[in-house]
């Protein structure tokens, strides 16, 4: 079986958790959820994972199935909000817009008093981004999402963090269906780190609405055989990943 784009993305998401240590992983979306589980089964065995509600699960269970795994802890929303201020958490959030410094918007498009499109609201993005490592997952890399300037800053980017002296700010990577981007460009701006197999640097540039820093771009690594088996047989046997990133 050929390796799919979704599997490459899942491994790139897993790599974003690899050095996290003993913290709570909070992935939003299917591919980041696969990534966090895969990291726990491979590079980051000490990660804590929730069932999506208030229970921390001791075993790494398949996606999309009612969990019967042993519960190792209790983490209702109130505890999440307290714990994140202590920094022992790493999230991978979605974004409706992201700019070159990693400012993120999930709140609204257009004017504040009368938005063109009202979205979910800032949620926990302001608090997450100034308290602990925050990464992003974009399943449809496009100029609609990668914009020169976001309509509203929910998740704080590197320029804003510097201005206010946010000492725990740590936005590391944006994983998309095309590439992995980091903030190693000039002044903490977005840089193209790697393109997924079959994607060109030009394609990523065309689908990004601002000038990307590009120096030595590598190819995103392929999953190992062991990782593929874990993704296909254990973590996502129903193939939910293909719904988020079609083959």
């Amino acid at each position, binding site marked *: 079986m050929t390796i799919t784009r979704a599997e490459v993305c899942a491994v790139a998401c897993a790599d974003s958790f690899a050095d996290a240590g003993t913290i709570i992983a909070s992935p939003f979306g299917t591919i980041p959820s696969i990534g966090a589980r895969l990291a726990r089964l491979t590079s980051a065995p000490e990660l804590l994972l929730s069932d999506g509600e208030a229970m921390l699960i001791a075993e790494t269970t398949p996606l999309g199935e009612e969990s019967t795994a042993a519960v190792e802890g209790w983490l209702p929303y109130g505890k999440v909000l307290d714990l994140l201020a202590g920094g022992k958490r790493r999230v991978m959030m979605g974004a409706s817009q992201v700019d070159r410094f990693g400012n993120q918007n999930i709140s609204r498009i257009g004017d504040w008093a009368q938005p063109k499109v009202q979205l979910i609201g800032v949620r926990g993005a302001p608090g997450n981004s100034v308290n602990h490592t925050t990464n992003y997952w974009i399943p449809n890399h496009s100029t609609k999402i990668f914009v020169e300037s976001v309509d509203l800053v929910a998740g*704080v980017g590197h320029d804003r963090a510097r201005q206010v002296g946010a000492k725990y700010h740590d936005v590391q990577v944006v994983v998309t269906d095309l590439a992995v981007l980091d903030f190693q460009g000039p002044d903490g701006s977005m840089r193209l780190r790697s393109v997924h197999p079959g994607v060109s640097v030009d394609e990523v540039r065309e689908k990004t609405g601002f000038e990307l820093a590009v120096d030595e771009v590598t190819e995103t690594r392929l999953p190992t055989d062991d990782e593929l088996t874990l993704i296909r047989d254990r973590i996502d046997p129903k193939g939910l990943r293909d719904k988020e990133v079609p083959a």
Partner: protein
Amino acid sequence: MQDKQLTVDEVVSHLRDGMTIGIGGWGSRRKPMALVRAILRSDLKDLTLVSYGGPDVGLLCAAGKLRKVVYGFVSLDSIPLDPHFRAARQRGELDVAEYDEGMVLAGLRAAAARLPFLPTRAGLGSDVMALNPELRTVRSPYADDEELVAMPALNLDVALVHMNRADRYGNGQYLGPDPYFDDLMCAAAETSFLSCERIVATEELTETAPPQSLLINRLHPQGVVETPHGAHFTSCVPDYGRDEAFQRHYVASAKPGQWKAFRAEFLDGDEADYQAAVERFHARAEVPA
């Protein structure tokens, strides 16, 4: 001890135009929906709502009851966005204060402790500060000199929450996985009202569940309402899960031209009429078209 049992409509008779009301639950989970429906039937107006928002926000928007909403998000969980809240915002008719989820928590904690504010990092550097120009920062008086957001107290006139069980004196119990912020909502409010699936004798509360499940004690609620399925269509586990089919129907019915029929079928009568209409909805759905 004072017997505090009321009906949903009696609870609403204690509310006034222009009040600031905190609603418990989270998203589309354990919302005091029977009390919300009773507000929809009332003449109340110009309310300010503080909520980890779900269909409570949507329904009150649809009925034009709100002057302002204070929230971190508005979501139906399995469906990311509430159509009525979006429509009200996109018409530009709704005043809002949008905060980080943790800022809402800090604001409720400040109110519960009768403090003017609590410091938090959440909000720093984000546009939450610009969107809410009344927000101020505060500088640490200690050597670190760190600048933090001074989240003002979210003082509530009234809190409305829904529990799995309660006794008639106002001791409330949750049996699901998460207490959400219902105890804090009550503590931040001048007074509060608690609805529940079932009122039981006090000694029955701890017969099968641990005392830690007694989230709310009779210090706070002024009234207790027994209203089975009172959180419908949000989840109220372990008594029942979210009614996903009905929630989808609620969203689909928000389309122009269809809301009037939804309102007539489900919302224009009393709570018993609502529950009967929901049963008919499911009976209808089970019959293949």
